[in-house]
């Protein structure tokens, strides 16, 4: 059984309305273009204000590395939001996953055990979200809000509120970490590009392919667009919904590895407010919170926008208050841009 491509593309699901779909796509392109312009503009502003330190290869590397943690989470969040869901638990799950991996390798263990442990634990937590939402019929907002609290509690409980040091996994070296040691995933490079950036780009490309080139991707968008219509068309609605929360947990696990690798430890207070950054990036990227429309490329640019702002603001030594105002304004501005298009 196949789903006609038109169905997933416009988000109108079974009531595929060709002119409407076209207009939406047309308007959207302008919006995605606008975000690209914003990214370029921010970079140019940075280059003008701090010509010696902002537009350098080293700083681009730094910004991409910083973006990779929230970036990987935001790709998963794009899938969740495409189904008209939400995952508020990503930041807490990140901390819990890191701590779980950490206690597995404390005092002794290997990088591989840490990675598998962290990813498996985050996936398990995501599965609890998935079951509660798909089978328990709990509203995603509430289910993941509960997990937000549960996972943070677990993170604090796992090692009695203390961080777990992971530097032993790197053999104590910092400058040039051995390949496949934990620190290598955080700061190591291949051809001058940090490993975490490869991971981020890889996850982004895979996410784009799955969402835009597979039947599963069309299911995800169809479920978010019109659940009833999707059901009638034969889409396995429940399984599709379940899958996106498991995917979100899995990607949170990968993000946890990237963060812990850079931090050299797993901290129970890390990941605070990451859900806001991830949701913000997805939304300014043009994915609709109402579901039925997903833009991985937009999410990617949204994550870059936040990374650029953070880097530029710190380089200018602006206070956090100013940073908060600017970041919030950009989210608001981007969503306002989306509004007329939503009305068309």
């Amino acid at each position, binding site marked *: 059984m196949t789903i006609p491509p038109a169905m997933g593309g416009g988000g109108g699901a079974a009531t595929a309305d060709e002119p409407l779909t076209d207009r939406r796509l047309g308007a959207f392109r302008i919006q995605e273009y606008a975000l690209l312009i914003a990214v370029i503009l921010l970079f140019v502003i940075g280059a003008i204000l*701090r010509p010696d*330190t*902002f537009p*350098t290869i080293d*700083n681009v590397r*730094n910004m991409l*590395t*910083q973006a990779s943690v929230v970036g990987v989470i935001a790709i998963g969040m794009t899938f969740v939001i495409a189904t008209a869901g*939400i995952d*508020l638990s990503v*930041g807490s799950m990140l901390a819990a996953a890191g701590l779980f991996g950490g206690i597995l390798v404390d005092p002794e263990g290997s990088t591989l055990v840490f990675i598998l442990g962290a990813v498996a634990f985050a996936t398990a937590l995501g599965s609890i979200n998935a079951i509660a939402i798909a089978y328990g019929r709990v509203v995603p*907002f509430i289910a993941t*809000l509960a997990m*937000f*609290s549960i996972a*943070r*509690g677990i993170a*604090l409980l796992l090692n009695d*509120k*203390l*961080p777990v*040091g992971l530097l032993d996994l790197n053999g104590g070296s*910092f*400058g040039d970490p051995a390949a496949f040691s934990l*620190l290598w995933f955080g*700061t190591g490079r291949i051809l001058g590009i940090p490993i975490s950036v490869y991971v981020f780009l890889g996850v982004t490309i895979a996410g784009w392919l799955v969402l835009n080139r597979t039947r599963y991707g069309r299911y995800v968008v169809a479920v978010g667009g019109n659940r009833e219509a999707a059901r009638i068309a034969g889409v396995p609605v429940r399984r599709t919904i379940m899958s996106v929360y498991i995917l979100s947990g899995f990607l949170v696990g990968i993000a946890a590895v990237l*963060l812990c690798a*850079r*931090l*050299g*430890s797993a*901290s*129970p*207070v*890390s*990941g*605070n*407010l990451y*859900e*806001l950054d991830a*949701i913000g990036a997805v*939304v300014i990227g043009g994915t*609709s*919170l*109402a579901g039925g429309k997903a833009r991985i490329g937009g999410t990617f640019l949204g994550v870059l926008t936040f990374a650029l702002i*953070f*880097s530029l603001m*710190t*380089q200018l*030594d602006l*206070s*956090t*208050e100013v940073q908060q105002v600017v970041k919030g304004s950009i*989210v*608001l501005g981007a*969503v*306002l841009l*989306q*509004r007329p298009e*939503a009305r068309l």
Partner: protein
Amino acid sequence: MSLKRLLTVVMAAALLAFGAVACGDDDDGGDSASSGNDNTAASGSGGGGSNDGPVTIVASVPPTDHGWLGAISKNAKEAADSYDDVDFRLLEAADSDSQAQQIEQVISEKPDALVVLPQDGEALTPVAQKAEAAGIPVINVDRTFSAPDAATATILGDNYQIGVLAATYIAEELNCDGNVVEIQGLAGISVTEERSKGFSDELKKACPDGGIEIVAKQPGDFNPDTGLKVMENILQAQDQIDAVYTHDDDMAQGVVQAIRNAGRDDDMFLTGVGGSQDAMAQIEEGGLYRATFLYNPSMAASAVNMARLIALGEGFPELVPPEVPRQIIVPAATVTQDNVADYEQYSFN
């Protein structure tokens, strides 16, 4: 439509972010049968009615998801456990509002004394005044209330002095010549402001001709994860950094990692605040982490002892007449490789 939904999501998530980090655990150290450590050889009862039966003391603190705050709770519990005649309960509150509600609740239970480390001194002042008005003596720890009638006694560390000591140390190490980065705590609370003000004030005094420039000053929220990211960006922006003054040992671990990842740990040194085991171990080892400024969580133990004395109507025997002082300021201290051995016994993790 989508805007409305986003705002709802964002606001709700933000509200809950502050709320849900804490999971309050009521630790009922009720009838602890440990050895009676009667160190109150009070030469004379300072007046007031002495109690029959155990003294009930309730302590209210912010969520202990941070090393220093965790040590505060631990010290308070241990102090209470050391007395046979103390019935002790520790409450954690996620934010100012829930802390106020919690204390409100406790007032109705009429404990003999209340120990409060407020999330925000100003916000908790009215409820502390209410407790005092209800005849429950309040012992204020670390972050002060904004009215004198909100507490019977106050014990606090000297955050301004911490900044002063840090400036003295860094000015001396750098011979009044170099670039300094300051990684602050949580923006907008008095602890951060005072640690920062003491530092910049003293730098001016220590180096009257200038020479030391604070090239970047950014908050790291007392969180290693934020400290890491902020320091990564500052390292990009600043070619020449000679010293880093961080406001907290926990957070400093993230800052340390950013510097090491950038391979610049030989170019600069770093100082912390607090006195954690990790920090002291690194200071002893030598290298990047050069000093920390002690901000001793054992003040919570002193607070419980003071609460007990006040409830029993006793005082410090060394004072004439023996009373509990209205205010105690615990001195800060500079811990370096030279004296770390003396201070390790006070470290916390």
